[in-house]
């Protein structure tokens, strides 16, 4: 049974007759310009909203009296994701002036094989907060879907440029775009995807949201620059690494959550909470990513393993291991450039408990993320978000 919080004081209302066991959200007592009776919206409307947005396959599990239901976040927003990919394709095609290779290149990474984690987070947060603030209208939802679209596009545009910068050869199990086509064109394709994303963003007609998401771009570039730098002081290294992880990964998730909550009319605390959720999930995601780079094989990941070491990057496992094996400091400082450095670092990391410590830190961030959602109204989507934290922690690719 869903627990909506305390009983509302006013059981009688002039607008709508109260229905049976009326429970209201914590809205009572909160400064609200709407009439209290809004909180009497019969649970049926909420169920209808949820049902409308759940995947049709899971319709049978949406039963208000049945306690157990599938709250896997990916299936909660399943059909929306599929239509998301189609929408992205049609937007990218729609802006082409002339048929050229650009059409093929820009859609190359939008093949539905990605994890689509960012849109899932954005959509689940959107739905959860829509229920929380009771803003269940179509326009808000349409705009929130656009945010999910944009977050995936920004992510992919950064992937295209990253593959050029890291001279990657494979991604998601196929040739990287700069290998298949060439460098110059890939640069332009990345810019194209970004341009189309910006246009969609402007179409939402909300200056706040535009400001929030433009910050993501600045953070992404800053993260790349931070990666080029080497901090000599060991004490600073970890903080530098966490800041870089925020900039490269968590920033997009955090700001798209924030944008969606702003669109659903959340309070300042709501906005801050969703930002913290996105931020911590993002950092945990990046930590697990760095962990998997050591642990997984290339087939599972879809991209080559131990790539970070090859690129000279010192990630969390290495930094943890350096506390136990100080000789790693020299290797980190010269970015594993000498012969045999990569192998030595790999060996030392597996010998130390760098990997376990990384996982532990990721778990801490997941817990922080979940606790940021404490004030959120209960719903399938909130449970989905909590489950997402678990998925991020325990994924294998």
């Amino acid at each position, binding site marked *: 049974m869903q627990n909506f919080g305390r009983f509302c004081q006013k059981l009688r209302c002039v607008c709508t007759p109260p229905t049976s066991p009326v429970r209201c959200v914590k809205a009572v007592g909160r400064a609200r310009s709407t009439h209290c009776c809004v909180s009497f919206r019969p649970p049926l409307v909420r169920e209808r909203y949820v049902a409308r947005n759940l995947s049709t396959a899971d319709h049978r599990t949406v039963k208000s009296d049945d306690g157990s239901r599938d709250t896997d976040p990916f299936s909660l927003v399943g059909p929306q994701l599929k239509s998301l990919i189609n929408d992205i394709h049609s937007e990218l095609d729609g*802006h*082409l*002036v*002339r048929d*050229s*290779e*650009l059409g093929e290149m820009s859609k190359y990474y939008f093949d539905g094989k990605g994890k689509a984690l960012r849109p899932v987070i954005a959509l689940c947060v959107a739905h959860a907060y829509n229920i929380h603030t009771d803003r269940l209208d179509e326009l808000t939802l349409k705009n929130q879907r656009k945010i999910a679209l944009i977050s995936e596009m920004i992510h992919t545009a950064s992937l295209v*440029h990253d593959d*050029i*910068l890291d*001279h*990657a*050869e494979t991604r998601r199990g196929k040739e*990287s775009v*700069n*290998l298949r086509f*060439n*460098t*110059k*064109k890939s*640069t*332009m*394709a990345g*810019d*194209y995807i*970004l*341009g*189309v994303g*910006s*246009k969609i*963003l*402007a*179409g*939402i*007609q*909300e*200056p706040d949201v*535009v*400001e929030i*998401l*433009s*910050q993501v*771009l*600045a953070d*992404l*570039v*800053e993260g*790349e*620059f*931070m990666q*080029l*730098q080497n901090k000599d002081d060991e004490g600073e290294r970890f903080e530098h690494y966490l800041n870089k992880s925020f900039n490269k990964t968590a920033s997009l998730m955090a700001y798209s959550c924030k944008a969606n909550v702003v669109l659903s009319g959340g309070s300042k605390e709501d906005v801050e909470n969703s930002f913290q959720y996105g931020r911590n999930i993002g950092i945990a995601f990046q930590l697990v990513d760095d962990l998997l780079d050591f642990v997984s094989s290339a087939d599972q990941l879809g991209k080559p393993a131990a790539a970070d070491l090859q690129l000279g990057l010192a990630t969390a496992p290495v930094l943890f291991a350096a506390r136990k094996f100080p000789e790693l400091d020299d290797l980190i400082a010269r970015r594993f450039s000498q012969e045999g450095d990569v192998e030595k670092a790999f060996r030392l990391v597996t010998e130390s408990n760098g990997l376990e410590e990384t996982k532990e830190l990721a778990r801490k961030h997941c817990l922080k993320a979940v606790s940021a959602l404490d004030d959120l109204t209960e719903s399938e989507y909130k449970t989905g978000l909590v489950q997402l934290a678990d998925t991020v922690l325990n994924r294998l690719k």
Partner: protein
Amino acid sequence: TKLILLDSLLQEIMLTKPLRCGLGRGLSLSRQTGDKPFRKFNFETSRLGHTLPASYVKVNKWNRAVSEAEKLVGYPTSLMSLRALMSDDLTNMAVHFRKLIGTDHPVLKTVKRLLYHGKNNMQVRGLLVLLLSRAAGSNGNSDIDTNTGVINDQRKLAEILEMIYTSQCIHQSVVNVPVNTAAEPDEQVRTVLQQLEYGNKIAILSGDYLLANACTGLAALRVPKIVELIAQAIVEFTQAEFLGKQDPQGKLLPTPDTILQENWEEKWKLSTGGLLGAGCECAMMVSKQPEELLKAAKELGVHTALAIQAYDEMKLFSVDGSIGSGAPFPLCSAPVMFHLQSDEELLDYLQQFSEDLLQVDYRMVLTRVCEGNGLEKTHELCRQHVDKGLEYLRKFPENDGRQAYENLLLAMV
């Protein structure tokens, strides 16, 4: 200390790649006073290798017009964004660019062109937007700077425009290197390839940095319609890169179906016309001008950009251009294209080099183009666009801002 580092870096860039200009011949500088069409290039007297500082302002109608305009509305801001990039603590770009000195990466040339040849090389987009803002008037907006007649948001828009243009130029200086450079057996080639890769990295990152800053700047203006128009311009110029046939290095090759004036216009309309047009239109939006002025501003921007491009290409072939003695030049520039319309033999000759355009005998192509009517036709093209631009400019109120803009346009013909 930061600026000292920056300036010393730039000095180094200047000295290692000497300017190729005709000034070494000792001809009088006032040769180019506007009335005569450009003389044909004279190979015997061309000489390379004099490193004259770029502040050597030539007496030239264009430069005069630009200086006058700057006095009216303030200094052009293109230098600001690139300088900001170079002296930023976080990005440490000066250090990265320093590592690139001595390599052949085009991004170095681009940066030099953008930083040093501001006046002489068409870095006037921001200036044009400012002039137009002054010409149109503030329309009741109080956030105006009375000295220059430009609203603060319009000035920010001009800066953003320059940032985006700079980012576009820098992204276009990326070279195509094979992805797996470590597999190259030859040691020397491998070093060169890795240097080029590093240059690419710096180019992409700088371009992205400027683009990201431009986007945050745009968002801070808090008018979503402006963001939409500028985003449309970005979408357009990224597509311009894909038009036409290219060799593996990304250099353009003219083919029988792409040498018409419409092709040239389409490409440059997408590439730079869209950006300047959107910039002008958005500046008018800031001061809430009526619909006809918005449209006029957009068309004016597009035609101005096309005129500037034609003028630029014409200058390249002129006596001051840097393409003496066989250096490669863009084969899809207007003079070449117009010439190829009547010279099929040369067109066929060029088709042979679709695998590697560096093998073309550029000296021969240059001679033939200069002998033909390519340059005159380009001059005519420039004049056409200037005339169309003037038509739209006349819709704006008559004042010194408008006059300065007119002077700039007329300086090109």
